[in-house]
């Protein structure tokens, strides 16, 4: 459901703040600094970064540039190692039972239980394969608008934070009221703010 799929789902943002001079150079530097770093061969829990919209394995934009006309097109890639609560519980209980038997004690203290859970989680996390998720975006530089191809609130929060970290610019989700403020001339704004729901029957 991304930018290039046959059926696209997206929300709109307004980009707030002034673009720095020589913006494309600035953007290139910031995108490179915040490009996606692979975690397949280490034990990091999570990695977030920019990749090409055409290929999620291209984080150096060799295949296609992030600039297209007056737009910047990027994919936000989030890879995460997760352990399901069910599996964590199973292996924690197993380890607790092993320790009780090994030490010949009737029960474990609360601190010991927390430590066991933490070390089991770490052990399972190292075995887990990072699961990738990608979200496309298309930023219209002249209009200061951005299409983000996900309606998930979690993804939207991830984008807002990472976009701010990368470009030092804020994003504001364009719900109908805020879109209305952009569309209407200022003389209508007071009337807009006073509108209340009407009954249509």
């Amino acid at each position: 459901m991304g930018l290039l799929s046959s059926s696209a789902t997206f929300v709109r943002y307004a980009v707030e703040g002034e673009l720095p001079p020589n913006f494309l150079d600035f953007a290139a530097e910031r995108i490179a600094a915040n490009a996606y770093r692979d975690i397949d061969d280490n034990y990091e829990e999570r990695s977030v970064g920019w990749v090409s919209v055409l290929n999620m394995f291209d984080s150096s934009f060799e295949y296609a540039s992030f600039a297209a006309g007056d737009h910047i097109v990027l994919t936000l890639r989030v890879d995460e190692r997760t352990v399901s609560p069910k599996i964590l519980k199973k292996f924690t209980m197993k380890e607790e039972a092993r320790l009780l038997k090994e030490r010949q004690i009737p029960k474990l203290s609360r601190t010991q239980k927390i430590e066991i859970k933490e070390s089991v989680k770490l052990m399972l996390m190292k075995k887990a394969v990072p699961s990738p998720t990608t979200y496309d975006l298309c930023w219209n530089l002249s209009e200061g608008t951005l299409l983000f191809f996900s309606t998930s609130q979690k993804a939207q929060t991830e984008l807002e934070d990472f976009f701010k970290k990368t470009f030092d610019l804020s994003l504001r989700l364009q719900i109908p009221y805020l879109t209305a403020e952009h569309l209407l001339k200022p003389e209508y704004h007071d009337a807009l703010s006073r509108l209340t729901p009407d009954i249509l029957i």
Partner: protein
Amino acid sequence: MDLVDLIVEKRFLGQEFLTWLWYKSDERGGTVFLPGTGDTQLVFEKHMLLEYGEGEAFEKIICQGLQAELNEARTGLRMGKKLEQARIHIIQGEYEWHMTLKASLLEFRSVKPPKTMAGSEEGATAEAVEGRLLDRIGMLETATRTIDELFRVFLEIRTSPAAWQEELDRIRKWIRKPE
């Protein structure tokens, strides 16, 4: 007002717009007038979701079917429900878009833009890739601009008490109109 409060308090704005748009399209047999563009074909089809009330009193109905079978949705309007989601088909000249609009957040879902390039034209050179991206972006932005223009027409009526009262009378007559 922060964003969460705005979403809750102004939720009605997108729903009233979508309901108004249905009325506008139905009034002229599936055609709406866009200032600067002229007549555009805009048909409500297949899928509609209507909502009413808040909290425990919240109700929603989902209606599916071809255009002629949206009577259930019309009945929903008569019960005071407002349109929250609808599948729309827009035709401008030789281009056609299908999209689902979610009213309260103005989300664009399952947007199918017109296919303008044949498979054989889709080369792999940097220029061809950029061309393909720009073509897709242009088609999606045309869809959002069309909806924005319609939203602007609605807002100019909605924020003028006299114009809205007249429009409201016509909408109410349309809702009560027998099938």
